[in-house]
């Protein structure tokens, strides 16, 4: 197992280089560069000034030289400086955004699991019942509804009409003057809507997946065997059926690791949440190459690691794979 993990880790290096090369070329092929984005609307900027800026960023070099330089810095884990006006380290800019995005996404993953797993199990056990039909329609509605639209409607209802919840940001303006309990509630209330909105869309996929896994497992003879042994139905469903039906979920979990950090451009923008998604979006709009590359490489790395964790986790959980 350890050798397998080591081999997988080694394999990620060429993969990362390939992924970063393609990303690098695509970004540079996009119309307009960081200098144009920053100076086009300013008539006072002279051609020489632009050239100086280009040289300052190293953009006057051929693309392959730029990539080689970037790769050289990456080898020492130096993500470079942001092209934006603050000129801060990319690693620093990304690092400060991670806790926000991570906490929202972990919470919404938890919410999805807590709802989707029981929902899927119950729908499968009571297949074609009214509960099954209604929950099917409900989760597909959630899947079909655009996130931004739902977010706006909820903001109108809870934020404006009812006035129960704040509509944007992470904390209120007067946060610092609040007592400890009020601080906790302030943060919680700011998270409620974003977490709910981001969980709602994912519910459909997960609960349907759970349902079909359960249906698949319930058909198996070993479930009839479990019943024949005289096990209570609760044990048949949760001990014999659910454990087998949860196996494929490990794969999904692994695949959702990059999503946990990636964040969502849409709902971070709508709720004005200073997360990674928002940062990435700003980076793309201003052609902040080092920032974009940094975010992409982190995303790619997490994807590869997530895949590996899924495979390892699967092997640990499933005895059929473990011995091979």
């Amino acid at each position: 197992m350890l050798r397998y993990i080591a081999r997988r880790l080694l394999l990620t290096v060429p993969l990362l280089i390939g992924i970063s090369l393609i990303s690098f070329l695509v970004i540079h092929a996009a119309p307009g560069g960081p200098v144009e984005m920053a100076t086009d609307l300013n008539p006072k900027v002279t051609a020489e000034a632009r050239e100086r800026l280009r040289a300052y960023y190293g953009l006057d070099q051929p693309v392959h030289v730029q990539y080689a330089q970037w790769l050289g810095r990456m080898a020492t884990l130096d993500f470079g400086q942001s092209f934006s006006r603050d000129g801060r380290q990319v690693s620093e800019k990304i690092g400060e955004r991670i806790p926000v995005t991570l906490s929202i996404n972990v919470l919404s993953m938890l919410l999805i699991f807590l709802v989707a797993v029981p929902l899927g199990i119950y729908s499968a056990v009571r297949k074609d019942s009214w509960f099954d039909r209604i929950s099917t329609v409900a989760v597909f509605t959630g899947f079909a509804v655009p996130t931004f639209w739902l977010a706006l409607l909820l903001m109108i209802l809870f934020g404006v009409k009812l006035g129960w919840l704040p509509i944007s940001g992470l904390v209120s303006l007067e946060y610092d003057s609040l007592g400890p309990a009020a601080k906790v509630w302030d943060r919680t209330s700011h998270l409620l809507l974003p977490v709910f909105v981001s969980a709602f869309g994912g519910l459909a996929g997960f609960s349907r997946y759970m349902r079909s896994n359960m249906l698949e497992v319930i058909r198996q003879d070993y479930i009839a065997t479990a019943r024949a042994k005289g096990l209570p139905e609760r044990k048949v469903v949760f001990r014999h059926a659910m454990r087998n039906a949860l196996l494929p979920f490990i794969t999904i979990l692994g695949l959702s690791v990059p999503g946990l950090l990636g964040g969502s451009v849409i709902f971070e923008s709508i709720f004005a949440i200073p997360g990674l998604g928002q940062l990435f979006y700003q980076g793309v709009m201003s052609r902040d190459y080092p920032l974009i590359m940094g975010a992409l490489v982190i995303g790619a790395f997490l994807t590869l690691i997530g895949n590996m964790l899924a495979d390892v986790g699967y092997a640990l959980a499933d005895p059929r794979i473990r011995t091979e």
Partner: protein
Amino acid sequence: MSRGDGPLLSLENIYKFFPVRKSFFVAGTLRVHAVDGVSIDVPAGKTVGLVGESGCGKTTLGRMAIRLIPPDAGRVVFEGRDITTLAGEELRRIRSKMQIIFQDPYSSLNPRMRVRDIVGEGWRVHGIARGAEAREMAWRLLRRVGLSADAADKYPHEFSGGQRQRIGIARAIALSPRLVVADEPVSALDVSVQAQILNLLRDIQEEYGMAYLFVSHDLRVIRHVSDTVAVMYLGKLMEVSPAEDLFREPIHPYSRSLLSAVPMPGGALREKIVLSGEIPSPIHIPPGCRFHTRCFMAQRMCGEVSPLLRECAPGRYAACHFV
């Protein structure tokens, strides 16, 4: 012990329908007549063979016999007690006396459980044994069905089909049941392994004295194991006879055509009856005798009146107007 001299298990006029959905929007009223009024007794310690073509309802009947699925009508009487509507705790308790061996040894064992847990879970549930005692019992049982004791710590996928079926048997007999439904227990196995498993089942029966309801489509297997044979066609019994009599001289035209398809040892000749046509759909069962569309003896009344199962010779029952 069973009360009085009655049979261990009595199925009385059992029906099972499955609704067929015509489409997503129309909830159909069509029904598959899987089991259509069957009565049969299984005496204690004996083997009743249930034979018929695929889809004739023999598996469904077997599962109703041990209440894995509930019948739509009729009674299931076990040890003189009506268990048709038993539910919950009472049903769970009686399960230890009736077990099942499945056809597919690959799907009938939970892939995530060790063999000792598969075999021993019944003891835990019914409060018979746990821990070290259960482990000891599992070893004995596994050796009894021809596996080594170290099989206990392995997972099902580490065994071949025949070995897995032995695990399935060990599991089924773990609770010393009085009735075991064997649902095509050897159909998925190689012929050489089939014989081993059949002999194991027979030895175990002699040792433990349980009754088998043995479901199979294979007449040679049925002949090898059965005391009594019930021939099923489209959800109804066509003939019930002692195995010896049936294989010597089948009464019902359907039994006769079935047996004529079995090769005789030594290549002996017997009348060859080839049925015409396909087996009718169990959704649209022919009126009258359900076999008349393919019967070589069919007369006009066969399409109108359904024959009852009646005693045609001592101890032998057939459902046909003309025997």
